[in-house]
């Protein structure tokens, strides 16, 4: 089976600060990859390069057999197949929950309204927020917002889901409901790359953990090994601090 995502020698700098110094790894279809590491280590930047929210200077990213950074590739088409969930939700506040879900399918995929509505209702039911369809994001809790944001991404039938610290902005008691939705997604075979500080989640749900520090992948191993027997001293040091 060929990899769904293949990142090769990715380099990225902000001005003189080199944040990614040659990142390479690949993700198989159905795989759930957790990305952990200290702040400023380049985790989010790496994730944002995958759907080209960040430009990068060197290296290549292949998604589903397409070399993404080629000028010829329609980046919008690629993005429509990669769902992204942000730390701060980024729901569209002027639109209702239902409208948030419908916008991209209607405008990008040109799905007919009844089908899109049907799908939206199904997804809202799945995340337990069908009764909030007509609410505006401003009237939702953080956990509810993030669940809606996940549903909004799922509306596009993505092949890959990117999570950028999806629970970092949540009150502790709301983290669980978001993680539950993500667990369900993982169980149903969604390919996911999750930048997270939730070590419990990473250990329980991820097939593989990548530890990033100072712009490089310091360690890439299955969760059991990562959490019980990390090889790299930097990993050991980080895990000692967070667990």
């Amino acid at each position, binding site marked *: 089976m060929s990899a769904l995502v293949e990142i090769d020698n990715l380099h990225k700098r902000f001005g003189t600060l080199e944040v990614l110094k040659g990142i390479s790894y690949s993700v198989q279809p159905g795989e759930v990859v957790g990305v952990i590491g200290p702040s400023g280590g380049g985790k989010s930047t790496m994730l944002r390069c995958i*759907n080209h*929210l960040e430009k990068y200077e060197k290296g290549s990213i292949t998604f589903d057999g397409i070399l993404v950074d080629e000028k010829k590739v329609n980046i*919008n*088409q*690629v*993005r*429509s*197949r*990669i*769902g*992204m969930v*942000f730390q*701060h939700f*980024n*729901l*569209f*506040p*002027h639109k209702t929950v239902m409208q948030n879900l419908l*916008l*991209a399918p209607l*405008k*990008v*995929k040109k799905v007919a309204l009844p089908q899109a509505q049907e799908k939206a209702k199904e997804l809202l039911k799945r995340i337990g927020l069908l009764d909030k369809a007509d609410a*505006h994001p*401003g*009237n939702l809790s953080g956990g509810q917002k993030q669940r809606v*944001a996940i549903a*909004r*991404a799922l509306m*596009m039938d993505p092949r890959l889901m990117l999570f950028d610290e999806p629970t970092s902005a949540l009150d502790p008691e709301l983290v669980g409901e978001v993680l539950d939705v993500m667990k369900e997604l993982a169980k149903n075979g969604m390919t996911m790359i999750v930048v997270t500080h939730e070590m419990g989640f990473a250990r329980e749900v991820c097939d593989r953990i990548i530890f990033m520090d100072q712009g490089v992948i310091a360690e890439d191993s299955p969760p059991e090994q990562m959490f019980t027997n990390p090889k790299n001293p930097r990993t050991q040091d980080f895990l000692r601090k967070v667990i």
Partner: protein
Amino acid sequence: MPEIVRSFPFLLQGALITLWLTLASGFFGTIIGTLAGMGRLSAMKALRYPSSVYVEFIRGTPLLVQIYIIYFGLPSLGLDLKPFTAAVVALTINAGAYTAEIVRAGIQSIDKGQMEAARSLGMTGWQSMFHVILPQAFRNVLPALGNEFIALAKESSLVSVIGIAELTRQGQYVISRTFKSFEIYGGVALIYFALTFSMSQIVGWVEKKVKIP
């Protein structure tokens, strides 16, 4: 019968023209201003520079001179506009420059996560702008836009110099006939105020209407 009462219907005709001038140039000015405002934030120099030159030049020169250029100056270049058209064009170009700055501020007030979320869903830059950024930006700058419309209603009095029979010009007619300056200009001022006060009420109502819950 006081002169102001007798002349009232005549002044009202002028007020109607003032209203038309305001609505027309406010409408077109908002369109041009939105384009120029987006242009100033564009990554493309070919859009950014002309937008900036437009805004800076119009803001930095008197409206009266702009009216003169468009009505008296352009015919020498072969572009002969009727007075009303020239008036609307001049006011539109002027309002557009101020609106551009308002729209720019509005767009910049929106968190960049909004654009990222829209783009990450596969929407084009234009789709994201149109469906996500601008609707929020306009809500945020509605009070400033209302100010601009009110300023426009008042500044439209300047086109009286090219013979548009708007409110101020009508007042001048009456005074040239009756010499009752205080009474008529006072009446004219009150009509302007009625116009602008209604506009600010309408803007206030729209603000409430489109407020994001």
